[in-house]
Every structure is written in structure tokens, then in C-alpha cells.
């Protein structure tokens, strides 16, 4: 029990960031099922078009619009896949509500079991959205997994965790940056909400850890990470490992 007293605000363990990749692979078995289920409606759409409407077009025009049609069917496939994922997720949420907390890394822990299940399904939607040429589909995939995000947020190729994240408007996430709301600490998995408010910038390759709150107009510099539960104040530039105040944002403009 004496340990507990030491784990305060300035304790060193909070500066130690480990990975958020949970090791359960068995939930990946749902992937073939979901992909298979979403193939059928897409095929139905395609066949309806080719049986009933294809003869209305001149063959040459048909060839020209064929790539567009393929894109459209791909979009339909993705949307149906999202709907099926959403169905799965609502079913799961009926059985067990997602919540923040500290879970043990074993499947006997009910929270951990459902966390991994949800994560597996959400990852499918996220990964599929990476293979679509237009960037906005990723926003949809994030909204599917209950992450608050707007279409003005620039999600360049960043890794975003699947739950308990809020991203404000006009926020820019740099390339390769990682936002995680869950993390493995030895035998436990901690899950805590990350809030990033409006007009924040997160530099390339920086890591945002569980429980971090970024107020409006904050900049987190490139290649830095935040402490667990850190609260970044409004209008400051933070940088370092772990992140520390560098300068107020107002001084930047004078240069």
C-alpha cells in the first residue's frame, strides 16, 4: 500500500509510454464474415444495374463510365461494410457498455474481452477506409466508432485509436502522429478519454497518451510525447519528451 502514495502528479511512471497493440488475434475471425456479408448487397446492386439499365446506354459510353461505376460500387461496398460494423457494435454495446478504466490483460476480464472485440471491428472499418482515394471516408469511419470528429479536421496519415477520443474543428494531426486512448501497463490495460479541442496542431511523429487534454490553440511540437493525464494549457507551444512549455503562441507571430 505504501506504493500508492508515490504515484502522484510527478511520478516517473507517467512518462513511460508503451504500446497500445492488444495481443488478441482471435477476434480477427469476424473479418471474413463481415466482408462476406457486405459483398452480397454490392453484388446485388451491380447485377441490378447490368440487367435492367445497361442496355439504355451506348456501349461506348458504358465503357467510359465503367471506372466510375466501379468506384461507386466500391463506395457502396464500404458503406454497407460500415453499416454491418455498426450493427455489430450496437449489438456488442447492448451486451456490454464501453467504459473507461483499468482492465486486466486476460480474456476472463469482461471489459477487456469486449474492448478487444470492438477494437477488432473498428480497425477493419478504419483500414478499409485507407484504401479509398478520397480522404473524407476516413472521417466517416471514425464517426462510426463514436469518435467526435468534424470534416475540417485534417487527418493526414495518422494512427488514431478506436475509442474515447474527441477531435475539434480545424485541428491538424501531423503525418505519422499517434493518438491513443488505451495503453498497456505491464499486466493492465488503461483506457482514458483524450480530448483535443479546436485549432490544435499536433506535429509529425508525436504521441498523445491516454487522459491528455489539449485546450484550444495549442501546439504540440514534432517528435514529442505527452505524459499520461497531462493537461496542455491554451495558447502555448509544447515540445519535448515528455512535453514541456516552450513559448506562448503570441510570441511566435512577432518573429
Amino acid at each position, binding site marked *: 500500500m505504501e506504493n500508492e502514495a508515490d504515484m502522484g502528479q510527478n511520478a516517473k*511512471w507517467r512518462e513511460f509510454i508503451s504500446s497500445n497493440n492488444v495481443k488478441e488475434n482471435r477476434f480477427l475471425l469476424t473479418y471474413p464474415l463481415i466482408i462476406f456479408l457486405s459483398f452480397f448487397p454490392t453484388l446485388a446492386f451491380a447485377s441490378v444495374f447490368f440487367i435492367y439499365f445497361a442496355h439504355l446506354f451506348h456501349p461506348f459510353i458504358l465503357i467510359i463510365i465503367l471506372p466510375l461505376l466501379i468506384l461507386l460500387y466500391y463506395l457502396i461496398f464500404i458503406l454497407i461494410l460500415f453499416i454491418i460494423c455498426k450493427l455489430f457494435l450496437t449489438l456488442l454495446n447492448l451486451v456490454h457498455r464501453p467504459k473507461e478504466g483499468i482492465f486486466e490483460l486476460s480474456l476472463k476480464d469482461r471489459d477487456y474481452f469486449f474492448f478487444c472485440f470492438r477494437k477488432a471491428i473498428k480497425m477493419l472499418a478504419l483500414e478499409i477506409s485507407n484504401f479509398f482515394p478520397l480522404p473524407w471516408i476516413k472521417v466517416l469511419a471514425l464517426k462510426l466508432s463514436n469518435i467526435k470528429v468534424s470534416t475540417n479536421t485534417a487527418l493526414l496519415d495518422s494512427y488514431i485509436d478506436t475509442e474515447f477520443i474527441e477531435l475539434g*474543428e480545424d485541428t491538424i494531426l501531423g503525418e505519422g502522429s499517434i493518438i491513443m486512448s488505451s495503453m498497456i501497463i505491464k499486466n493492465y490495460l488503461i483506457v482514458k478519454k483524450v480530448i483535443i479541442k479546436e485549432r490544435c496542431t499536433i506535429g509529425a511523429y508525436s504521441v498523445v497518451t491516454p487522459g491528455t487534454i489539449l485546450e484550444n490553440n495549442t501546439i504540440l511540437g514534432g517528435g514529442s510525447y505527452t505524459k499520461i493525464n497531462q493537461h496542455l494549457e491554451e495558447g502555448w507551444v509544447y515540445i519535448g519528451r515528455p512535453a514541456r512549455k516552450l513559448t506562448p503562441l503570441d510570441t511566435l507571430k512577432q518573429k
Partner: protein
Amino acid sequence: MISYLILALSSLIIAKICLWIINIFHKPREGVFLRSPEDKDYYYWSLRSLIKKFPIWTTRLLPLNLLNSLLYKWFGVQTDYSNNLHGAIISSEFVEFGKNISIGKGCYIKSSYIFDKYLIIKRIVIEDNVTIGPQCYIFPGTHILKDASLNAHSITHYNQVLEAHGVYSGSPAQKVEQDIPYHQITKSALKKNLFSLQNEEDPLKDPYTPLFPESRFVKKLPTHLSIFFFLYIFSYGPPMVLLFLVISEYFYPLIVNSSSLDVLLLPKNLIGLLITPFVLISLYLLNIFLLILLTKILYRFLESQCPFREGEYDWNRKNKEYRFYFIRSFLMRYLKWKILKGPFPWLIKPAFNFIGNCAIGKNTILEDLYIAKEHLEIGHNVYLGNIIVANHYWDKSLSVKGIKIQDKVVVSDGCCIGPGTEIGEKTSILPLSITTKSDILRPNSYYFDIPIQEISKEDLRKKYNFKEIFEGEEGG
């Protein structure tokens, strides 16, 4: 779906056969080699990595974790299916994993490392129950013992051994003396400290007032979508017509005129079957060529409307230059996405040179990277790993500046090259370092750290154990 799986598996098998044949001529071995095509080890190493590129691309298309570990196993990496290596970048030879390993996103586990004029290959061993944080760099020759953990953004040095149950952090990684031993953290203590500290102000209950109305998204949508559809239709149209002609004029009569068994047995049909991949690849290349051409035309048009300028832009949608900057970058985004995610990522070099505002030299190797689209000057014989080359930078405003990289520069994985950087000849930058705005790096030197600093040869020898590498130079 099934045909895709067959493609993936057959590409794996053919790559494996090619590797066997190459390994008969020259066995892969560890050591320090010179980075020049005359060196046999370097030559065969690059050949091996070239062969592996296509199967890796095909398997990455599916978001299946298991297929990835199958791929690594197939190429001779010892792994277990209980590991989660999602999002990490791992060399496909000379790596050994234990069980129950969790590796963070964006980690680099590289058993081959290019530094200055050398290529270093050495085996990496990672034992059971190890956790590695995100964005780490594991040097060749590292040995991580059981139950060790490594902090985010840390680098292990050449030939380092991390002890069992140790907690490591920093660059180079050093053992951390924690106020509480990391493995003794209890659940109740975690709960008490994680969920009770932030109650002085409860940020969750803050009213969420957006600065701008959401409808702004609809306003910018039409131009972006019309650009996209213009590129999409006209780049796919002609190849589609050609494909249709090939099928209707050549393949269809071939199949109709012969009975089922003949399709496979007649030599004429076999030739037809064999040339299909070439037809498909050439059509794909035509598609990309058209895309590049159309992008160039649109790019020139946009530039005539509002020319590119280095300097600062206001963060304001009413600013014309700011708007055009983003339309241009959206235009290039589709091209970049298409080429870099496709099977021929090296096409990005000629494409950028052709569209303009970029000059990338001969024999330059660009690995999988996020690259800026405008005002790049890269010399000959440069090696750029998995890095970010950015020509814009956000703070209160958007500042844009070009980048110059001179001949024979080596930039390792995980670096970020900021706007306005100039790198002199034969300089090498160590992994995970970041250059800030308008840094000028001297030629013939080594650089490292965030923000970037020069590091002497002595320091490299002492701290990062580069003794063997430099001794190899003095010996021969």
C-alpha cells in the same frame, strides 16, 4: 476475393523460389559492407529487398494482421501468432521474435541499416513478453531479453543488450530508475491516480462551441470533387477502351473457339494466357501516365491563376493564396496516393520531375515516405528512408519553403525534414531526428536529435557503439 488470395499466395511462392535461387549464388550474411553496387553483399541485399517488395504490397492490401505475420514467417522471420506487430515496420530477414510481444505503431525494427557509405546487417533478437512503445528505432544487433520494456521515441544502439525485466528509455536507451518499480504497479493505485487527479476542473463539461459553422465543408466540396472526377474519368477512360478491345477482339474468340480443355493445352492459348499480365500492367502504366499528364495540365493552369510563392500565408479561408495552396495539394494528393499505394512506387520520382517544381537526381532511392509536392531539390545517389519531407509548417500561420538535399546524403528512417532545410553533401542523419525551420546542415558530418544537432565521430563511437563500423573503414 478468391482470385486476389491466389494472386497473393502465388506471388509469395514465386518470390520464395527467386530467393532460393539467389541464395544459392550468394548466401545472405551479417556484417558491415560498403554501400556501392560493386560490393557483392550490398548488391544481393538490394536484389532480395526488390523481390520482396511485390508480395509485401499484395499482402498489405488486406487489413489482416494474420496474413502479415504469415508473410514474415514465410521470408524467414521467426514470429508467433500471439504477437501483435500492427503498424510496425519490420525487416524481413535476420529478425527473431518470441511470444506475446506487443510492438507500438510506427516502430522500426531494422536488421539492415544504411549509414554514410556503409550497409550494416546484423540479427535482432526480441524475447517473450516484451513491450515496445510507439516510434522506437531498434538498431541491428540489438538483443532484448524477456519482460523488458522500452519507452516511446527511444533508440537502442548497435549491438545493445537490454536486460530482463528492465525498463529502458532515451536515445541511446538507458535503464530507468523508477520511483516505483514498473512491474509492481497495482490496479488500485492506478485507478486512484488516473481517475481522481483531474477533478480541479472538469473539462468534459465545457460547452463545445465551434468557431465556424459546419456548412463551410459543403462550399469547398464541389471544386475538390470536380478535380477528382475529372482526373479519375479521363485517366481511366482510354485504358478501359483498350482493355475492352483486347478482350473482345483477342480473348473472347480464343475462348469461344476452343473447348474447355483446349484453353489450357493449345500453345496458342497458352501464349494468350501468358501475355495477359503484361497487357494488364501496360494498361495500368498507361493509366498512370495519363493521370500524370492531366495533373500537369491542371497544375499549370492553377499556377497561372495564382503562382506559388515561398513565405507565410494567413490562416484564413478568404486568402486566395492559402486557398490555392490547398487546391494544389489536393490535386497532387490523388496522384501521390495512387502511385505510392500501387505496385510501382518508384514512379513517383519521374512523375514529380515531370510535373515541375521538383528536381530529383539519378540513382536516388526513395523508400515509402510522405513527401512534399512542391519545391524539392534532391541530388544524385541520395538515400531517403521512411521519412517525412514537408515543405509547409503550421503555427499561427502557414509557412511554406523549399527543401534542398545535395548529393550522397543519407537520411535514416523516422526523420522529419522541415521546410527550408538545406543538407550539404555526404551528410548522414541518424534515425528519429527532426530538423526545424530553415536549418542548414554542413557537408561531410553526422547529425542527430530533436532539434537536430551535430554529433562527432567520437560520440558515435562511444555512445552508439559504432566502433566496428568505423574500424571496417580503416581496415579496408
